[in-house]
């Protein structure tokens, strides 16, 4: 019964969102027709989608096995929290969550106080049309309320890999990011489509760009963290097509963040801002297409269905086509302002854009190239981590250099020698820092030393700029520090720490793989790891082999770690739960394997890693999103 309500609410969403495109068409015929105000529609649409989502969540909670999605992705033994997260642990439910987030953003936008009513209404036209299209996709190809006949008594299980705290919030956060860009797209398309010739659209756009970017950053970071501790390989980024798909809009959005600075301050690159907005959402959709259509081989295998793929492809074509068509059609309706000088703040931001987009384009190309070459040349190639790592380095370096010097450049026109002259002190500090870093890593791999030097330069230059700014204004209290400076400071330091963490974890990691006897001690980095044995522990829906390890440092006991291997009853699947001891110098990471079968000894396969500075990755991601959040607060403050 509840499921019927669910589909009913979904259809109501569909009906009301259709006014997004019906209204402008009808009012073209007769100006006096006004069926609903778009603001009120957005509230209604959000309410109905939320109700529909609740219906699905309720079906999962009571384990209503007359629904296909529940049968395939839930189980009576499942702890209640995973019954709820099971809602978005599958294609149908997650796309409903996607729709919910989309309507939520529409709702937020509709209640936002925006002076330019014209932009507001027209943006909602576009947003509601997008909602209609996604809603249609759900109803036609991915109905979560489909009944299974006859009803089952017990469900198969939620994929054990997804039964994890990280996965409770990773998808919602990621979707808040991905789908948040739908509003950014809607604003931009509205500006182009209805030729709103006011450049204050940038101010309407800003908070949504910052908000979505912040969520996307957190979402990707959380996904990476999950992969780090759940997959048991000690890595955090695998260049999987799905990871790449999330990185693409993040890169273009990061470019957009910076461009918006120029366009709001100098009224330059206004059309470029619109184009980036359109591309960013397009890439979010493309990611969805790649993941859910099964055209690429990826770790994140969703149930694949070609008809879904076809629908998303059409949707993608429509959204991209409309965006680019009206972009071209609008011609040059913003006056082309003066040229951009390479040595200037605009120049640095332009370089940032060029490299960010080149990186994004290259990752996109690498991800879809196997598909294309298969169609054109009938070959079957792979493009994986070695390729992506090799193209990443030459693009990262110019980006980092821009990051170090960009903030010190003046708007309009600056002079290279003048800059050097101004930064004499900083350059001297750089020299000292480089020597110090080199000394600390003496004898280490060259690449890691280079990366460490560059990243510590990012941190020092950011701090230097900030202290210089503070010292110019002696009366400044902490509360009055402009958020713009603060957000740039945190975000850039975040990137610096992220690079340090990534370098340590990927280049300097140490590894010990062995059969370890009980009471045997393995030394790695500064730690001694003593294996105590394995116990069988029973969880709610799994049995686990739980190893016990005692960690010592300089002969002193620190703590015990309990890595597990879980055998899930209902799906016969096995997951690894690594145990991690994090310190600021690095993570001690232990995963347990099989019992040694060769002799009748009590030894087990143990994999022990020391991953230097991994914690810094997560701190970096946190600072990045904090920077985004500060920018968001700042833009919202201006409004009021």
């Amino acid at each position, binding site marked *: 019964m509840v499921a019927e309500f669910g589909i009913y609410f979904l259809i109501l969403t569909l009906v009301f969102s259709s006014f997004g495109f019906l209204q402008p068409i009808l009012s073209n015929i007769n100006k006096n027709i006004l069926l609903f105000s778009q603001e009120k529609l957005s509230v209604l649409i959000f309410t109905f989608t939320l109700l529909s989502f609740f219906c699905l969540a309720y079906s999962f909670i009571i384990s209503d096995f007359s629904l296909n999605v529940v049968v395939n992705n839930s189980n009576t033994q499942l702890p209640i929290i995973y019954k709820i997260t099971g809602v978005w642990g599958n294609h149908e439910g997650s796309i409903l969550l996607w729709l919910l987030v989309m309507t939520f953003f529409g709702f937020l936008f509709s209640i936002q106080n925006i002076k330019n009513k014209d932009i507001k209404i027209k943006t909602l036209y576009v947003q509601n049309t997008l909602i209609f299209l996604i809603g249609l996709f759900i109803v036609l190809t991915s109905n979560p309320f489909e009944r299974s006949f006859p009803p089952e008594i017990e469900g198969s299980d939620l994929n054990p890999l997804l039964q994890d705290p990280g996965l409770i919030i990773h998808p919602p956060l990621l979707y808040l990011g991905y789908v948040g860009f739908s509003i950014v797209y809607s604003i931009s398309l509205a500006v182009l489509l209805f030729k709103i010739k006011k450049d204050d659209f940038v101010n309407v756009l800003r908070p949504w760009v910052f908000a979505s970017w912040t969520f996307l950053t957190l979402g990707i970071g959380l996904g990476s963290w999950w992969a780090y501790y759940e997959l048991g*390989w000690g890595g955090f980024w695998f260049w999987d097509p799905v990871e790449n798909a999330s990185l693409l809009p993040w890169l273009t959005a990061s470019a957009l963040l910076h461009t918006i600075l120029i366009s709001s301050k100098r009224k330059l690159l206004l059309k470029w801002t619109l184009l980036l907005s359109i591309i960013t959402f397009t890439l979010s959709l493309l990611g969805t297409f790649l993941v859910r259509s099964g055209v690429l081989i990826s770790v994140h295998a969703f149930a694949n269905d070609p008809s879904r793929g076809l629908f998303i492809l059409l949707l993608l074509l429509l959204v991209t086509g409309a965006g680019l068509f009206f972009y071209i059609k609008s011609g040059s309706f913003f006056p082309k302002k003066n040229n951009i000088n390479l040595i200037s703040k605009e120049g640095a931001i332009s370089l940032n*854009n060029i490299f960010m987009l080149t990186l994004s384009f*290259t990752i996109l190309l690498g991800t879809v190239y196997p598909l294309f*070459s298969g169609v054109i040349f009938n070959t079957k190639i792979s493009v994986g981590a070695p390729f992506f790592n090799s193209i990443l380095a030459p693009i990262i370096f110019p980006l980092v250099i821009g990051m170090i010097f960009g903030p010190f450049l003046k708007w309009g026109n600056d002079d290279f020698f003048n800059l050097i002259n101004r930064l004499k002190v900083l350059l001297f500090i750089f020299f000292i820092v480089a020597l110090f870093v080199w000394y600390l890593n003496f004898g280490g791999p060259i690449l890691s030393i280079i990366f460490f030097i560059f990243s510590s330069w990012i941190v020092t230059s950011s701090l230097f700029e900030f202290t210089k700014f503070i010292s110019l204004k002696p009366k400044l209290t902490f509360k009055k520090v402009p958020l713009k400076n603060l957000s740039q400071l945190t975000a850039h330091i975040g990137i610096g720490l992220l690079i340090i963490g990534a370098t340590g974890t990927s280049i300097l990691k140490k590894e010990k793989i062995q059969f370890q006897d009980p009471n045997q001690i393995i030394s790695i980095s500064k730690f001694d790891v003593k294996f105590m044995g394995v116990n069988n522990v029973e969880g709610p829906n799994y049995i686990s082999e739980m190893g016990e390890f005692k960690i010592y440092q300089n002969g002193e006991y620190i703590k015990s770690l309990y890595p597990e291997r879980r055998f899930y009853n209902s799906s016969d699947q*096995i997951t690894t739960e690594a145990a991690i001891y994090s310190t600021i110098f690095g993570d001690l990471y232990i995963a347990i394997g099989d019992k040694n079968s060769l002799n009748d000894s009590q030894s087990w396969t143990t994999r022990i890693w020391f991953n230097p500075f991994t914690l810094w990755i997560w701190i970096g991601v946190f600072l990045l999103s904090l920077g985004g959040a500060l920018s968001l607060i700042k833009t919202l403050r201006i409004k009021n």
Partner: protein
Amino acid sequence: MKLFITIFFLIFNADLSKSVEPDEILENTELEEIAREIGRNLRCLVCQNEDIENSNADIAKDLRLLVRKKLTEGESKKEIISFVHSRYGDFVLFSPPFRYDTLGLWIFPLIFFIYLSYLFFRRRD
């Protein structure tokens, strides 16, 4: 057919945790290092986008052992990779060979970069 293939992959994909096993590791740490390097460049054929070093599949284990055996017999990294390539085709290489059909992977980003730089810094008078 698709169903069978799915079943057949599922059987090999039950456990993500297994990768390099202790008894596979070579005594000679230098050779082991090269073996890892080779392994990271070879794709596990039945897995979802994993290299053979990080995969539990049967075929990945066989390939790991083969790589190490050939290394101890004195073959070079290049020889081993080209042997595996000759048996399994391009799909097994994680960094694609430089060839007419893969040229685009390097050329297009370069064109894109140059065009974008032109767009930003061209002089309009």
